[in-house]
C-alpha cells in the first residue's frame, strides 16, 4: 500500500519504530514507522484528527509513546524528556505561536542559544575570560540569525508587539539559535497569506542550506508541495503513504482520505 521512497542511505537521523499512542480506548497513532535522512525536508500531512500532532509530540518527547521507539541520531530517545531532546539537537516550533513575550526580539534569540553555551552563572561570577568570549559569540550568532530571518531591524522591540508574521519568523529564529540537527515545524504556515507562504518556502529551503534537516506538519498544500522532498501521509493514526509529493498527491488512497476525490495538480 505504501509508496516507497528510496531508502538506501545507511544511518537515518531520525527513526520512528512502531510508534503508537493510546488515549484510553482511542488509538491516536497506531504503529507508525518512518525514517528521516540528514539533509531532507519531509512533510507530515493528513486530514484533521489524523494524529499528526500526537506523532509530532512523541518525536520531540513532549509526549511518551504507548508503544514503539524514537531513535534520534542513533540513540534510543524514547524515554527522554523534551529538554533532553533539545540538548541532543532537536528543535521545534509550536502550532500556536510560542515566544518569550516580554523579552526583546534579540533576547528571545539569545535565550535560544542556551544549549550551545557551557558557561553559566558561576563562570560569570568568577568573571572568566571563557564566559565573556562565549557571551560575545552567542550575541553574534543571535544577530546573524535575526539577519537570516529578516528581523534585524526589530531587534529591540518586545516580542509581544510584533505582527503575527514576524512572530512566526521569531519562533523559527529561536529554534535555529539552538543550532539544531533537526528542526520540527508544527504548521509553520498557519494563518499566513499565499505571499507569506511563498516566502516561508524560501526560508525553509535556506534553513536546509544551513545544514539543518526539516520535518514539517502542514495543512497548506502549496507549502508542502513547494518545499518537501518527501511526504508522509497519516490518516486515522496510520501511515497510508510515503514518497515524493507528486506521487503521493496522485496516490488513490491519499486522494480518497485526504485530498478529496479530485486529482490535485501540484
Amino acid at each position, binding site marked *: 500500500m505504501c509508496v516507497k521512497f528510496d531508502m538506501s542511505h545507511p544511518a537515518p537521523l531520525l527513526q520512528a519504530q512502531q510508534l503508537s499512542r493510546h488515549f484510553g480506548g482511542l488509538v491516536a497513532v497506531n504503529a507508525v514507522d518512518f525514517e528521516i535522512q540528514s539533509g531532507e525536508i519531509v512533510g507530515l500531512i493528513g486530514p484533521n484528527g489524523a494524529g499528526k500532532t500526537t506523532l509530532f509530540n512523541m518525536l520531540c518527547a513532549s509526549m511518551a509513546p504507548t508503544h514503539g521507539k524514537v531513535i534520534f541520531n542513533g540513540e534510543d530517545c524514547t524515554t527522554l524528556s523534551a529538554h533532553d531532546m533539545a540538548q541532543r539537537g532537536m528543535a*521545534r516550533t509550536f502550532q500556536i505561536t510560542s515566544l518569550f513575550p516580554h523579552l526583546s526580539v534579540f533576547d528571545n534569540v539569545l535565550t535560544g542559544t542556551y544549549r550551545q553555551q557551557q558557561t553559566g552563572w558561576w563562570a560569570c561570577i568568577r568573571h572568566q575570560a571563557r564566559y565573556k568570549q562565549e557571551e560575545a559569540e552567542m550575541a553574534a550568532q543571535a544577530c546573524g540569525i535575526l539577519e537570516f530571518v529578516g528581523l534585524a531591524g526589530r531587534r529591540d522591540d518586545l516580542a509581544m508587539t510584533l505582527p503575527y508574521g514576524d512572530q512566526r519568523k521569531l519562533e523559527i529564529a529561536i529554534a535555529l539559535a539552538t543550532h539544531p540537527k533537526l528542526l520540527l515545524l508544527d504548521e509553520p504556515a498557519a494563518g499566513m497569506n499565499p505571499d507569506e507562504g511563498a516566502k516561508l518556502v524560501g526560508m525553509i529551503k535556506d534553513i536546509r542550506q544551513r545544514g539543518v534537516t526539516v520535518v514539517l506538519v502542514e495543512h497548506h498544500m502549496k507549502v508542502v508541495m513547494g518545499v518537501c522532498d518527501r511526504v508522509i501521509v497519516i490518516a486515522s493514526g496510520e501511515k497510508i503513504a510515503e514518497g515524493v509529493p507528486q506521487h503521493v498527491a496522485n496516490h488513490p488512497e491519499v486522494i480518497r482520505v485526504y485530498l478529496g476525490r479530485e486529482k490535485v495538480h501540484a
Partner: protein
Amino acid sequence: MRAAPFFESAKAWWLGLGVTLVAPFAAFNDYLLHMMVLWGIYSILALSLNIIVGFLGELTFGHAAFFGIGAYASALLVMGLGLPIWLGPLAAGLIAGAFGLVIGYVALRIVGPQFAILTLGFGAIIQTITNYWVDVTRGPMGISQIPPFSIDALGLDFSQASHMYFLVLACLTLAVYLSRTLQNSRTGRAYVAIRENPELAQSIGINTFKNKWLAFTVATAMAGVGGSLYGHYLRVITPDLMSLSYMSALIIMVIVGGKGTTLGPVIGAMVYIALLESLRAFGNLRLVIFAAMLIVCVIFLPGGLISVWLRWHNRVREV
C-alpha cells in the same frame, strides 16, 4: 542597538556603592543609621525573593520562614554550641539553603497558585514548630541577648549601627553582584525563559525543574544569611519573623520596587523603610497604606517604580 538605561551600567553601580559608602558619615544621627542598616538587610532579603518572584516568576509565601530559619540557626549555634560568631551568617545560609533544597525538591513540581499555597503551608509549618518547640527555640518568647556580630581574630566589633552598616553593605554588594551576574548569564536567561514560557524553555533544552531547584536553593540560602545579620543586629528574634506580615513586607518591596530587576528590590526596600518610619504616626493604618500601595502598583505600575525610569528613558530616546 538601543542604549541601556543609566542604572543598568557598571558606572551607575560604582556610583551607588560610592554613595552608600559615604552616606553614614553624612547621617549624624543614630536613628537614620539604624534605618540604613535595616534597609541593607531588607534589600538582601528582597533581592533573594526577587530570584524566585522576579526571575522564575513563581510567587512564594514561604520566604520569611527561611529568613527566620537563618536568624534562629545563627543565634542558636552561636549561643548554644559556641560557634564562632563570624561563621554565623555562613552557617545560617547553609542551613536555610538545606531547608530550601528539600522543600524546593517537593514544592517545585507544582506551579502557579498551587505552588504559592504549598509554600504558604511550609512556611506555616516552620513557624508553628518554632513557636511550640520551646526547649530549643524558647517558643513565642523568642531569643534575646543574641551577641552582636564580631570577628575576634581581627579585633573587629560590629555592635554599633555605624559598624554594622558596613558589614551589611558588604553583604548587600555581594547580593547585588550575584543578582547582576545572574541576569547576565545563561542561567538567568533560563530562569526568565521559564517565567515567560516554560514549554518553549524546555524545547530549547532548559531543564526547568533543575533550574528552578537551583534558583530556589540559592534564594533561600541568601534569605538565611539576611536572617543571621538581622538577628545579630537587633539581638532579639521571635517566631514573628516567619509570619505573613514579614512575608508581605518582602513581597511589597519586590513588587513596588520592580520585580525581575536588580535595582528594583533595593529601591523597594528603601521606600518601604522610609514609609514605615515616616508614617509611624499613623500606627497600624500604615499597613492599609502599604496594601493600597501594592494594589496601585499592581494595577498602574506592573513593572514597579523602576519602570517609571525605564519609560522615561525610552521616551527620551525616541524624541
